[in-house]
């Protein structure tokens, strides 16, 4: 299915990174991301590229799926890089291009080695001491948001296919209005399903 690879899905495994707790993993991601952005220069960018690639290898992630998920970001990174070249020269261009890819890879390593439920459990744990936050609800909200991305893309593809089948492929009205209506209908159905399962009571 074409939507499956758009969001960094969990890849089952037993590497040390899979076993590492959610807290240290997210803290590590934050520290690494900040250093990638803060340390300037093309050379240091290459060092970070080596580090993130090593992390991906250590987590034994499948290179093909990493490539598929990095590709869209790479496109943007190339555009940004070209712009930087024109503005401030090759050093900055190479740095921003590699930095963007490194950030994506680092984030992918975390999503691919962390199950959504573990992430939610951790967030619930962190929110629980805060009296005015309903931790379970925050966790559910995040799960739904994560789910909404591939679900909306799937609906968009279906709507586009339906429009093309009727020869209306480029008509924005034939694309946009049914898409919005179906999104709202899907949201209501999901709300009903959640209510029926007693989730959020």
């Amino acid at each position: 299915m074409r939507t499956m690879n758009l969001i960094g899905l969990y890849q089952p495994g037993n590497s040390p990174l899979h076993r590492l707790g959610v807290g240290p993993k997210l803290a590590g991601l934050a520290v690494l991301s900040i250093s990638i952005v803060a340390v300037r220069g093309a050379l240091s960018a290459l060092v970070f590229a080596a580090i993130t690639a090593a992390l991906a290898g250590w987590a034994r992630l499948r290179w093909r799926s990493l490539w598929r998920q990095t590709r869209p970001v790479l496109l943007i990174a190339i555009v940004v890089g070209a712009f930087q070249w024109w503005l401030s020269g090759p050093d900055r261009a190479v740095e921003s291009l590699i930095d963007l890819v490194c950030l994506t890879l680092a984030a992918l390593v975390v999503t691919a080695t962390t199950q959504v439920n573990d992430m939610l459990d951790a967030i619930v744990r962190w929110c629980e001491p805060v009296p005015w936050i309903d931790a379970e609800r925050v966790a559910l909200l995040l799960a739904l948001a994560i789910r909404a991305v591939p679900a909306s893309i799937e609906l968009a593809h279906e709507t586009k296919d339906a429009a093309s089948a009727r020869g209306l492929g480029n008509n924005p009205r034939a694309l946009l209005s049914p898409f919005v209506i179906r999104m709202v209908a899907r949201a209501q159905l999901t709300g009903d399903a959640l209510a029926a399962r007693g989730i959020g009571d």
Partner: protein
Amino acid sequence: MATIELIGAGVEIEDGPVILKPTTLRLTEQRIGIIGGNGSGKSTLVRLLNNLITPTSGRVLVDGIDAAKDPAAVRRLVGFCFTDPAAQLVMPTCVEDVELSLRRSHRDPQQRRQAALDVLADYGLAGREHTSVHALSGGQRQLLALAGVLAVEPRVLVADEPTTLLDLANTERVARRLFGLSQQLILVTHQLDLVERCDRVLVVDRAEVVFDGDPSAAIGHYRELAALASR
């Protein structure tokens, strides 16, 4: 067996059409089928049973609990399975979706995981625990949706056209599961061979229950209605 009572329960839109005329029913049989044309009010009728729709007149009682007054309690008693499993599967992988149902009953993550794996094995989905819910076949997806609903052990299962999107083999797989339940089953369907396996069948037409009786007589009544409507 649970006792479901509708006491003059109806749904009407203000200044609009009557969706369901005031209906009085007492449902105690193990397997109850509901048939009727598209837009006749079947789905509205069953959505009253767990207060997904609140009646605008009358009351709905499940084992004596008023569905409109305590929806949370009634939804713990009445599980609901939808036509399109994609809408009710919320989490990315199979085991996580079942775990979502179990969050309330199992606070400890390890126990919850084990319980979810047991549920999946019971539904023939062992080994698929980390599979994306999108990667399952239609039949497996509906079985997973059922597993998620039944994991919390409701006393009644309402299924709104659960096999409409499925092929013959998957229909039979889901039907065998439904009719093998110890719980009370309320099944809305267009598949008349499934209706024949029920103990009692309601026929809904134009916003009211027009027939209530044994399956073969109900199917006969439904066929007559369909013949009239298609003329």
